[in-house]
């Protein structure tokens, strides 16, 4: 029965299409509706073009027409958007009502006339031979070989050659194709050569994510971190600059550094990085006051110099591991005390995956787990072990976006201040100030966040806690809204479970991935 209904519906669509095509206009300006304005649309179809090749937003807007009142102006706007997106096609809109009273809207797409090929003086020569280099004979289907052979013996037609090249590109998406002509063995004969070059496979290892930003936090004030990548292919050099950056750690740091990265060392499974940095610290008074009350926490320091060599190995395109050491020298605030070394072995595993579902929504998932172990064997004055697990997921459909993230971590031993966890900045527990809730950070942390975005407007809910083992744990919640326009953002957060509900706002520029190519 279901099959019969489907066949019936299919036949009805076909009959409608035949009628429509017979009267299909040649220009988008000819789009007279035969259905009164305001009639509810039953179904919408795009014919003559694969709707999946349109952008997700446009597809969504076309599909959203079903069940809405017919508006010719709206249909014209959508037709114009399709033409803007696919300038080689012309679009006509037809709406019609079938015998059953169902209202159908059709976007009929046809390719515009091929643009005139540029004149080529070699068009007068006859092709004596045509070949494809860079592909083995066994990779070519008989059909392709026949099509190639059909070019031989004819005068050069740039259109035919273009179409054959496009066909090669479709059949061998892992290759890039170019074309050249050479003199043939006799005068006025030419040889046509299509050259295939295998595209470089996508890298398995990723560069360290860039996080350049200039941020104003209404409690923590201005700060900036700039990482400007310079590189090409699998090699990158990234100068780092920080100016009064209090957004990442419990310390406010300024200084500079340099990171070298290679995501392919002989094989795309193996990579390495080396980072050197030197940052001067400014400590907020709540932090210094809290340190006086907690002598068990290592002292604040004046400067932090760190060297971090790492080796990375990709198990698969989505899963990689990294290992190395982080050697840090902490110069004391007071010259009479000695500097401390905070040297740690570092290991982490990273997973990332992105995919599209049947509704064309995109999903992206990233997760990581890292361990940093400060050890006497590494000549470290501070012995500790720090664990941190993080996960981030994004669902993106048209103008809608949902982001969910979570992280949890713990530290044993006596970690330096820069290793202690902090929440309450421009990206975590928005609405709270970390210097209020944990001025010296904590050795335990759990946090999760969910955010919904519609184009540039965001609503979020953050829940998290940072505390020291053997102390009372308090879960803090915040909510708020934000506006995002390209790299610019403005976010207002409100702490919820507190007697002092107030607005905390952050704004600035955050550019993920600033780089120059050389």
């Amino acid at each position, binding site marked *: 029965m279901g099959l019969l209904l489907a066949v019936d519906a299919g036949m009805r669509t076909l009959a409608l299409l035949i009628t429509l095509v017979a009267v299909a206009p040649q220009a988008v300006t000819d789009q007279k509706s035969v259905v009164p304005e305001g009639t509810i649309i039953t179904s919408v179809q795009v014919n003559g073009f694969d709707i999946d090749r349109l952008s997700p937003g446009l597809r969504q807007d076309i599909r959203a027409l079903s069940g809405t009142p017919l508006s010719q102006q709206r249909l014209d706007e959508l037709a114009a958007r399709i033409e803007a997106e696919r300038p080689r096609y012309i679009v006509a809109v037809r709406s019609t009502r079938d015998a059953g009273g169902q209202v159908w809207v059709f976007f009929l797409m046809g390719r515009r006339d091929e643009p005139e090929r540029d004149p080529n003086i*070699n068009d007068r020569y006859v092709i004596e031979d045509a070949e494809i280099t860079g592909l083995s004979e066994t990779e070519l289907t008989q059909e392709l070989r026949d099509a190639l052979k059909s070019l031989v013996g004819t005068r050069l037609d740039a259109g035919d050659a273009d179409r054959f090249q496009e066909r090669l590109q479709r059949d061998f998406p892992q290759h890039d194709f170019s074309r050249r002509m050479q003199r043939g063995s006799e005068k006025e004969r030419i040889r046509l050569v299509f050259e295939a070059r295998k595209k470089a496979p996508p890298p398995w290892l990723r560069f360290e994510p860039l996080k350049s930003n200039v941020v104003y936090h209404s409690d923590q004030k201005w700060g900036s971190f700039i990482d400007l990548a310079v590189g090409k292919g699998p090699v990158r050099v990234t100068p780092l600059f920080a100016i009064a950056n209090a957004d990442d750690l419990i310390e406010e740091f300024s200084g500079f550094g340099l990171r070298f990265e290679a995501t392919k060392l002989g094989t795309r499974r193996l990579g390495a990085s080396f980072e050197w940095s030197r940052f001067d610290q400014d400590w907020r008074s709540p932090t210094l006051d809290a340190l006086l009350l907690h002598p068990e926490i290592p002292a604040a320091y004046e400067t932090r110099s760190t060297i971090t060599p790492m080796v990375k190995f990709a198990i698969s395109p989505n899963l990689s591991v990294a290992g190395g050491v982080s050697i840090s020298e902490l110069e004391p605030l007071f010259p009479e005390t000695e500097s401390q070394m905070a040297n740690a072995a570092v290991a982490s595993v990273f997973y990332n995956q992105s995919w599209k579902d049947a509704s064309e929504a995109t999903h992206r998932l990233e997760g990581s787990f890292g361990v940093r172990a400060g050890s006497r064997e590494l000549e470290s004055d501070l012995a500790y072990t720090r664990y941190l697990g993080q996960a981030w997921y994004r669902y993106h459909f048209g103008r809608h976006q949902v982001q969910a993230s979570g992280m949890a971590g713990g530290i044993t031993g006596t970690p330096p201040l820069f290793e202690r966890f902090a929440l309450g900045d421009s990206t975590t527990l928005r609405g709270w100030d970390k210097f209020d809730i944990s001025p010296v950070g904590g050795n335990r942390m759990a946090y999760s966040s969910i955010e919904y975005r519609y184009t540039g407007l965001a609503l979020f809910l953050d829940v998290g806690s940072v505390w020291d083992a053997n102390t009372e744990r308090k879960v803090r919640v915040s909510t708020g809204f934000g506006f995002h326009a390209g790299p610019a953002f403005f976010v207002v957060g409100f702490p919820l479970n507190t007697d002092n509900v107030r607005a905390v706002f952050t704004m600035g520029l955050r550019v993920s991935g600033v780089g120059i190519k050389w």
Partner: protein
Amino acid sequence: MVLAVLTWPVARASAQAVSVDAVGDLLKIRAPSFSFLKGEPLDRLRDGRSVRVELVAMILAAPGKSPSTTTRRIFALSYDLWEERFAVTAVDARTQSVSHLVLAAAEAWCVEQLTIPVRTLGALGRDVPFWIRLEYRILDGDASAPQEDSAYTLQGLIDVLSRRRKTESSSHALEAGPFKLRKGGSHSPQ
């Protein structure tokens, strides 16, 4: 009637770079040093492909000023594999063709087609000296899909901020002057 030609180079770089003939009601431009077929586009030509070039001539009241008059033409060039000569066709409204040219002659022919009606100069030329700016753009015949690279790059930002066209693969400009029109057949600098 030949009105005049004048090359009064102020910038050393533009000395003898551009000359202008007023023939009848048209200004004709010659720029022997203005070469636009080189590098990758020239390789494409020598591989038997055609290359499309847009040439623009602008009349300026002073160097760097916005143009008071502009003329632009688009040319399709190809290279005869057997005769080793270039062929050029103007592919805009006024279709003109020429073939069997060496490289420099093909480039010169394109520049010579950039005629400017003298009447469009207004006060420029007769009473006030003018400058000429020549620009070219190699146009990609195939409008390739934009790169779907979500990462920002400085080059990308510069392209966005300067509104660089996706189809353009390279461009270049040459500015020369000042020029002034004189009555008579003299072709000497001012």
